[in-house]
């Protein structure tokens, strides 16, 4: 579904991603793990079109998408939940969700999308008229994911959904990710909390200083002795 080949990208002359190749199959959940500064968020930004790659190719459903504008990429069915959710703080939950289905393809399905998303996150019905800036971190993250789903994506990208949240809330966020996955969405997730992310993922990529250091199935990841030592603390 999503295929990235030999991707290089960075800011100015500084290269953050070096020769990154990643694949996400339809209905799959892929986790990209790695320490701070490995280039995880940059990777998602490049896919979403927020940052232009310096070389390499990105294909989505056999169409080349690198170099396309962000709104075109959303039209095609890729949606990004930025780190920290990035809700519009002064808009209500409802308006935030409305902005989620702003693009042409999904605007007319707004009501249906809302119902669908509300069945996943009942909280958005209760809090419809609340100003988003007044919600707690966990609630904001949920609404952010809901907002991204409002654009009816085929691929949902999550940038550190657990960042800045209490452990209990992190657990519930991953429950939601699991449910989203069960509903048939493909998910590309970037994370630092390795164990929880590995649990919901089918495939794992390990990114270190902009390079893919490991990729494989969940089982191989858990069995790899080097990874065990440095990432799982076993």
């Amino acid at each position, binding site marked *: 579904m999503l295929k990235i080949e030999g991707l290089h990208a960075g800011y100015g002359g500084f290269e953050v991603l070096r020769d990154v190749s990643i694949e996400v199959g339809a209905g799959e959940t892929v986790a990209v793990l790695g320490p701070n500064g490995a280039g995880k968020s940059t990777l998602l930004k490049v896919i979403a079109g*927020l940052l232009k790659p310096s070389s390499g190719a990105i294909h989505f459903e056999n169409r080349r998408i690198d170099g396309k504008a*962000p709104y075109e990429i959303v039209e095609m069915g890729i949606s990004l939940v*930025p780190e920290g959710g990035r809700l*519009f703080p*002064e808009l209500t939950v409802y308006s935030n969700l409305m902005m989620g289905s702003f693009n042409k393809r999904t605007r007319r399905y707004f009501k249906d999308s809302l119902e669908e998303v509300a069945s996943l996150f009942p909280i958005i019905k209760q809090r419809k008229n609340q100003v988003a800036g007044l919600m707690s971190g966990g609630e904001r993250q949920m609404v952010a994911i809901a907002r991204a789903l409002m654009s009816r994506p085929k691929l949902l990208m999550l940038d550190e959904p657990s960042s800045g949240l209490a452990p209990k809330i992190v657990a519930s966020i991953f429950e939601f990710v699991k449910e989203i996955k069960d509903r048939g969405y493909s998910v590309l997730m970037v994370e630092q909390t390795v164990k929880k992310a590995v649990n919901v993922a089918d495939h794992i990529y390990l990114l270190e200083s902009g390079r893919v250091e490991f990729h494989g199935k969940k089982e191989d990841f858990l069995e790899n002795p080097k990874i065990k030592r440095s990432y799982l603390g076993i």
Partner: protein
Amino acid sequence: MKQIKNLKRGILLFLLALLIVWPFLFQSKYLLHILILIFIWSYVTTVWSYMGRFGLVSLGHGAFFGIGVYTTAILFNLHHVSPWLGMFVGGLVAAAIAVVLGYGCFKFGVIGHYFAIATLVLSEISTLVIIALRDALQTGGRLGLTIRSVGTSPLYLQFDNKMYFYFLALALLLLALFIWKKIDESKAQMALKAVGEDEEAALSLGIDVVKYKTAVFALSAFLTAVGGTVYVQFTMFADPTTCTGVGLSLGIVFKAIIGGMYTLWGPTIGSLLIVILEEYTRLFLGSAYVSYSHIIYGLLIIVLIRFLPKGLHGTVSEIFQGRRKREAKTLLAGRQLAENRD
């Protein structure tokens, strides 16, 4: 709530009626002149706020105003083209420049302060161009130019009686307020609001940020140039300091900040105050102290930005309808406290 709304509507209708009969009741030419200036600057400031309220701060509107002024003046003086046509030509030129500059800036991430600086440069360039074209297009350079008088001629937008300009300027202001309302109801308003709050989030939701920002910039530039045309037909004289450049651009921004750029009436109230202030200092301190008004409104700006960042009207209307917001703020503070404790 509904009563308040009706009361407000009543007051507005009364004010409008008063403004319409004003020139017939009072013969003072001076007051009429001041009112016309207030209308024109309110119009330009309102139009500026179309983008200012979404965080798109342009310091280049002096240039667009100047384009309106000089395009009309030159077309008429040299080629005898009616200012009605000149108004559209000027507007289109201004809009074209806004599209090129805006698209270029927004496409390549020149936003926020950097965008403000880019437009500031445009203001400066406009002055230089007018001076450079002193002979080629008879702009008169620093000395200014005078519009050839043809007496009263509706076809050439010239009237000996100020009353015509009074109604023209009032109509323009009403048009600007009407368009503000229309923008508020459009889906562009949602998009722009989202962009103003968090541009990257808006981008990642698939909002064509560049398109909406460029469009509102072009609209604002077009209408500003139209204001320039009316202004120069009214004063019949143009020079680079009063009709274009950085000073004028900043003047527009200050008016918007003082009145409040986030509310429909804010720009009008800001312009009202500044024009009165300028007149007052000019009259009572005399022409020797002409720049005193600038010192006073410089100080005003500092005080207002510090204490009333939403401007006079913005803050006052917030106090009136703001109980909900204040409660929200306490809630937010409480929640942050709780989060910190965790």
